[in-house]
């Protein structure tokens, strides 16, 4: 079996000391920023992006991936203990997790969420392995029109699922596409939008853009109001859930794994959506829905499993098709592209080391996280006492050093500050950065696919609708768009009349 020899070679890669170390660093930092509110996985990954340039691509991706799923573990801790989600995917966990902590059952809540995360994460990895393998064989037959359609679908769904209004999210996506056009045109070599600034000739770097939007503007958003400190009082006893807890949680964990994995595959889905869906499913099928919101362990086990299972699912489209399904995957794609590796159907063949190495690293990483989180939970909790006043200057300093070392030019620092301030203002007005960044990374690929398709069809747009897969993709994205368009129209009409 090719899969087995593949995963074996993957384990050989991850067991090399360097990779093992970076995997540990990744999950460690992931848990850290998951616990600390104020900076999320996207910000951290973009800050650490320049660090990966100095190491081999497989090591870099192992670390970045570790941050992602590590943050999912860490995020639950603060939700449960202090009712503040460390990152967005743990918002639901607050509902019942914090109630459990108030009833003195913080230990089992933390325990079950770590166990659930581990089970969900491992399950989705197995799914990921098999699915990517089959899907990429299939995707080898895809041409530019199919890719164009799939990327369109990806961007539309991300905009569709954005928290704010669809209109604003779409504007951000289009803005991202335009920013992606800056620099030298790939086909004709002409300079576009460079305003005569030589620093822009190679386009806007992913690093300053991502760091500005997710690092600087996040810090600015956090310091704008007087700082409030939360104090955590409860003691944690009995990390291990008892038999009764297990009996109640088995169902939610199994369902959470499935929900998380499947929703993770969908573009724009990811951890946040799957944790919400899992919670509402558990509440609906529960025999005692009234206990939800009052410390039901099912309400912690399900969503926490789902958000970790989603991390595995999210890798499927990236590894099989080369199309990221959310911002975090987009940053990983960016990191791979900078290293000259193009993810996609050919990746298993051309870079088997990276493919299997990363998958194997996630098995190891999940196990590391279990060890990091269960016995040492007290240490992480103590971290909550680190005052923001110390944290934010450090984050800012890291972004400064990171953007400078990216290309050894001050220009990137200015670029980053610019995007930071712009991102901050846009945030204030309810514009989300995620669609922008995703579109920015997909932009050049999208344009290339579009123009290649035009060459193939001698300039006939119909090529997108005569090929079945691209037709389905485009129709779906148009339908998504139209449905919300109608909704908006109806709402506005209701307001007026």
């Amino acid at each position, binding site marked *: 079996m090719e899969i087995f020899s593949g995963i074996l070679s993957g384990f050989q890669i991850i067991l090399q000391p360097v990779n093992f170390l970076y995997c540990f660093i990744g999950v460690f930092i992931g848990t850290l920023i998951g616990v600390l509110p104020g900076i999320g996985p996207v910000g951290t990954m973009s800050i650490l992006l320049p660090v990966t340039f*100095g190491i081999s691509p497989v090591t870099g991706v192992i670390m970045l991936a570790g941050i992602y799923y590590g943050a999912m573990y860490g995020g639950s801790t603060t939700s449960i203990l202090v009712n503040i989600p460390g990152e967005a995917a743990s918002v639901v966990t607050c509902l019942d997790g914090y109630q459990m902590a108030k009833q003195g059952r913080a230990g089992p809540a933390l325990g079950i969420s770590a166990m659930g995360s581990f089970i969900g994460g491992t399950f989705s990895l197995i799914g990921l392995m098999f699915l990517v393998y089959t899907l990429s064989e299939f995707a080898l037959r895809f041409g530019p029109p199919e890719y164009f359609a799939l990327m369109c679908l990806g961007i539309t769904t991300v905009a569709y699922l954005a928290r704010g209004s669809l209109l604003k999210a779409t*504007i951000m996506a289009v803005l991202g596409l335009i920013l992606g056009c800056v620099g030298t045109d790939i086909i004709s070599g002409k300079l576009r939008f460079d305003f005569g600034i030589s620093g822009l000739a190679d386009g806007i770097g992913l690093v300053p853009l991502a760091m500005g939007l997710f690092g600087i503007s996040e810090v600015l958003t956090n310091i704008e109001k007087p700082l409030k400190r939360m104090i955590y009082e409860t003691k944690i006893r009995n990390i291990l859930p008892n038999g009764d807890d297990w009996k109640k949680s088995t169902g939610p964990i199994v369902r959470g794994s499935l929900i998380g994995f499947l929703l993770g595959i969908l573009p724009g889905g990811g951890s946040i959506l799957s944790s919400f869906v899992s919670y509402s499913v558990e509440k609906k099928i529960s025999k005692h829905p009234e206990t939800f919101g009052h410390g039901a362990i099912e309400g912690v086990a399900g969503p926490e499993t789902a958000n970790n299972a989603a991390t595995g699912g999210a890798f499927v489209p990236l590894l099989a098709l080369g199309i990221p399904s959310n911002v975090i995957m987009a940053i990983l794609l960016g990191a791979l592209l900078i290293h000259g590796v193009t993810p996609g159907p050919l990746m298993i063949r051309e870079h088997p080391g990276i493919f299997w190495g990363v998958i194997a690293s996630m098995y190891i990483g999940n196990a590391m996280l279990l060890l990091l989180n269960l016995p040492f939970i007290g240490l992480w909790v103590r971290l909550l006492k680190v005052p923001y006043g*110390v944290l934010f200057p450090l984050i800012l*300093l890291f972004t400064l*050093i990171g953007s400078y070392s990216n290309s050894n030019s*001050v220009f990137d620092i200015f670029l980053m500050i610019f995007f930071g301030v712009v991102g901050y203002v846009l945030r204030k007005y309810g514009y989300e950065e995620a669609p922008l960044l995703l579109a920015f990374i997909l932009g050049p690929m999208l344009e290339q696919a579009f123009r290649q398709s035009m060459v193939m069809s001698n300039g006939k747009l119909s090529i997108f609708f005569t090929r079945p897969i691209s037709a389905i993709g485009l129709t779906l994205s148009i339908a998504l768009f139209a449905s919300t368009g109608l909704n908006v129209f109806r709402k506005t009409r209701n307001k007026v009349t």
Partner: protein
Amino acid sequence: MVLGISISIYSKTLKLGKLASPGPGLMPFLLGLTLSIFSVLVVARSLLSAQKEKGLHEEGIWFQVDIKKIVLVTGSLIMYALLLEKIGFVITTLVILLILFRAVGSQKWSSVLVSSILTVLFTYLVFVIILKVELPYGFLGRVGW
């Protein structure tokens, strides 16, 4: 009220889209067009809702925002970028940390000083010695640091 700033950004990008040369400019042009359509929609909507709930939003978004802090932080970041290559990593970093710790963290001067120096040493160790990142030495040269 909502989109004063964004409109100006948008109209600018639109113009640029039209100016681009036909071949490589096709995509930007289409995008510029889409963008302007959507921004018109947003403006229209905000105008509609503004009529309804006049004054309600006035203080909403910027309420309680510590503008001074934002400006201070942004300003010091820009200063850092300007001075980094001239003065060198160590001194510039020390200065910006002093400002940031004091302004954002609002701690006592003594602890500000200690934490700034420690941070500089730590980042120097991690980035320059372990990760071997080339940071500017400034006028002090390699001997200075």
